[in-house]
Structure formats: structure tokens, C-alpha cells
């Protein structure tokens, strides 16, 4: 029971935080944002690792290994492509002090 409550509190806070943070993402970077969240979303790899690691049965090992492969490819691919995209964004001004705030 307390687990449910704790989980709900964390979920509520994380949703509010997600809204606040994502709303501030520069529209310039909406495409890299999508690939970055792809990579972060592959955190489900944690569940798959535990599943395989506990080794309860061949069934869970097979499903879990497939899960690890799928999630890991998202992690690796997602970070690589995000970084590739972001590397392309260059300013014409040599990082000078920008006006205003």
C-alpha cells in the first residue's frame, strides 16, 4: 500500500516537472528532443535486465534478452543521433554574451 502512494507522489511530481521542463525546450531543438526522449525512455532496459538476471525460466530469459536488445539499441542509437544532430547546430556569433536575459 505505501508503495502505491509513494509511486503516485513521484509520478505526480515527475509529470509536473516534465511539463515545466519540456515547455522550455527551444523549438529549434524539437527534433533532437524527440530522439533524446527515445533514448531516455529505453530506461525500461532496467526491467529487462532484472528479468533476465533473475533467470527464473527459459521463457523469461528469452523475452528479457529480446527486451534488452530492443532497449539497448534505442539507448545507443538515440544518444548517437541526438549528439549528431546537436553537433550540427552552430551559432554565427562566437559564443559572445547574448543580449538581455
Amino acid at each position: 500500500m505505501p508503495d502505491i502512494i509513494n509511486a503516485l507522489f513521484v509520478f505526480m511530481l515527475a509529470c509536473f516537472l516534465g511539463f515545466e521542463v519540456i515547455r522550455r525546450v527551444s523549438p529549434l531543438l524539437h527534433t533532437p528532443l524527440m530522439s533524446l526522449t527515445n533514448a531516455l525512455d529505453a530506461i525500461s532496459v532496467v526491467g529487462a535486465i532484472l528479468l533476465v538476471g533473475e533467470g527464473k525460466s527459459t521463457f523469461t530469459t528469452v523475452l528479457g534478452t529480446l527486451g534488452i536488445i530492443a532497449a539497448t539499441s534505442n539507448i545507443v542509437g538515440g544518444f548517437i543521433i541526438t549528439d549528431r544532430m546537436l553537433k550540427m547546430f552552430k551559432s554565427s556569433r562566437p559564443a559572445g554574451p547574448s543580449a538581455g536575459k
Partner: protein
Amino acid sequence: MMMAHGIDLLIEFFYLAASALFILSLKWMSSPKSARHGVWAGEIGMALAIVGTLLYRGPGGAVLHYRWIFIGLVLGSIVGVPLGRVAMTAVPQRTALSHAFGAFCVTLVGIAHYYSEVPDLPRFTMAVLSAEVILGSLTFTGSLMAAGKLQEILPQRPITYRGANVVNLGILGVAVAFAIYLITNPGHTAFFPFIVALPLAFGVLMIIPIGGADMPTVISLLNSYAGLSAAAMGFVLNSKLLIIAGALDGSSGFILSVIMSKAMNRSFTNVLFGAFGQVQASAAGAAEQRTVRSATPEEAAGILSAANKVVIVPGYGMAVAQAQHKVRELFDSLSRRGVDVKFGIHPVAGRMPGHMNVLLAEADIPYDRLLDLDEINADFPQTDVALIIGANDVTNPAARDDKASPIYGMPILDVDKARTVMVIKRGMSPGFAGIDNPLYYLDRTLMLFGDAKAFVGDIVRELSGSHH
């Protein structure tokens, strides 16, 4: 929870740090200056999460069985590298594909969890497990379909039939009914396959009636669903890290789809309830035969080189034609002549949020030359030439002036306020919204008919020719 030894406390601290790094990662995406730190934060966070999990001890202090874990990690990395190296134009389908992968993992873990714990599943666990599996499966097939349409393996055109929505929602409804039954009777294993199979079918059917052009909004929604399914997995495993990452991802997809639907002037409920497939009223048929003026690359080059201020408005056509590198040459050539060149970027130009920015950044155009709607619109009245390259709907003045237009109310780039308007496109065919564009019939408008890449290339050649 499993909190007997100090090692478990250590793992939780790894997870705490990983969560904080994920938040920082998204925070740093707020500006191109800090964005790459964001990627690093995300990478470190992910590494901490994985290492932390590998430290996990089962009951009796047994370490995990590492063999298949490592095989999975290695194989996944091998698959991941080429997925990270696709061409920029393939980013939409890559994104869709990776939602499918993410949802695949979530669904598999959910299924395995069910069968290895059954019938020992408390109601709450069974409820969130059902949510995880249902969201995961429909996201899996939905994303695969979306990727197929975008890659043009599947037909792009919407396939509709009467009552499609009723059938689809019915299928999903039955799946939810099975799930509700399972919450109180988790032991009825015969019912479980339905809450996987029916959403898988729903995912396919949901996408069939949707045209390829509507995929970006769908992808963002699927992004949101993928995030929520990961959060549901977090509820099942009582992992705060998963809940946080899932919620962040879920809000990201949700916000991007809200931004898109606002910029397209669609009601958000229209998007949420999947009514993407509606046949768009085409006003084009009734349009009287009005005349347009067209010009050659030579004439266009002359006008551009005489201008002081030029605003280039790129659109979907630039992406299709892969014209961004030629556009860069044009930008350089004009800048060398002292022309002030800026880019006006509409939030839904192209087929993906931020599409134009990535393409232009790829072609090395400095991002401070890329101005969004609010920033650039004040500039058009002082602009000599607005050069539109493969954009259409985002410049349609009917959205501003014609209350009868289906896109009335959509915010647009006010290119018609510039002294001269030049439009590069192949013919008179409409854009995504399927409607006529009165801009083309204005006195100040010149049509430059041709493929974007070829035409811009011709202009550049003319400019450098006349230079000598």
C-alpha cells in the same frame, strides 16, 4: 521492497542520481548552447542506471545471471549504432521505429512478469501491469505501421471505411474489459493473451486510416504512450526511476503533439481521439482559373542580388528535394554580396517539429539566423524578397484573412507583407492541407517552377556567373 543490504541502498542512490541526471538532460535542451551537456547527462544517467541494476542481488545475496544480459547489451549496441547513423531525412521513421522497440521491450517484460508471478498478483500490480501491456502493445504495432508509412514501405494514403472508429474503439474496449476482469482474477491465464493481442490489432487498425502526412502528430502521441507504458512498468516494479523517466517522456510527447496541433489549428481532442483520417475539405476544385506570373532562375538571381533584406521560408518541399545544401550555397553567395539573409521557420513546416532547423543546421547554417514565427513576422514589412522554398500551407494568407478557409486561424508566416514574394515549387499542386494558396495570385508574387534543389542550384550558378 528489497531493501535488506547496503548494496540495495547503493543501487537506489544510483537510481536517484540517474533520475536527477535525466531531468538535467531535458533541462539543458532549453538552448542549443547547453544541449550537448544534456546528452552527456543523459548518457551518464543511463550508465548509472544500468550499472546500478547489474549490482542487484537476489534473495540470499545471489548475483544476477549476467550471461544473457551481456549478450543482450552487446547485440543491442550492434543494432543501435546503425540506427544512430541514419540520414537526417530518415529521422521521422527512425523515431517511429525506436518507439516500437521501446514498446516491444516494455510489453515483453510485462508478459514475462505476468507469467512468472501468476496468480500471485495483487490488484494494484495487476492493474498497472495491464496498463503497461496494453499501452506497450498498441504502441508497438502503431509505431511499426507509422514507420512503414513514413519509409513508404506501406501505402501513404489513408485507407478508410465506414465505422472504422467504432470497430477500433470496440477492440480496445474489449481488451480493457479483459484487463478489468484480470485485476480481480489474475489467475485466469487464458484471458491474458487477449490483452496483448487485441491492442496489437488496435495499433495496426488505428494507423491504417491515417495519411502519411499526419504521421508526425501520431508519432508524438505514440511517444507519449511509450513513456506512459514505461511509467506503468515503474509502478509494477515499484521503481521510481522508471516512473520518472516514463513521466518525463510521456509529457514530452504530449507537449509536442499539443504544439503541433496548435500550430496546425486542429483542436487537441481531434488529435487525441485519433480522428486524423478525416477527409480534408478541398476548396481547390472550385478555384477559378486565375493567372500567375512565373520567372526564370536568371530573373530570380537578379532580384535577389538587388535586395538588401531577404527572408527564406523553407518547407516540406525543401526536405523532399534535399535542397538544404544548395540553400546554404545561396545563403553564402548572397551574404558575400552584403545581402542580409534570414530564415523564417514555422513550427510545423515540414513533417516533424523542428524539421527545418535540423536540416538547415546540417547544412551548417548558423542557428541564430533561424527565426521563429513571432520573431520573423515583424520583419516582413521591411523585407525586400521573401523566398519560399517548397513551403505552402505555412504561408497561406487565407489562414489569416479568409474565415471560410479550412485552415482559418492557423498562425502563418506573413510573407505577403514583403515587397516581392518568390515561390519555388514544382507546379500548382496544393500542400499538406490540400487547399489552394491565394498567395500565388498576388501581383507581387513570382512563381519559380521546378524542383527545389535544381532551382536553387540554378540561382546560385547565375549569381556566381554574374559575379565574374
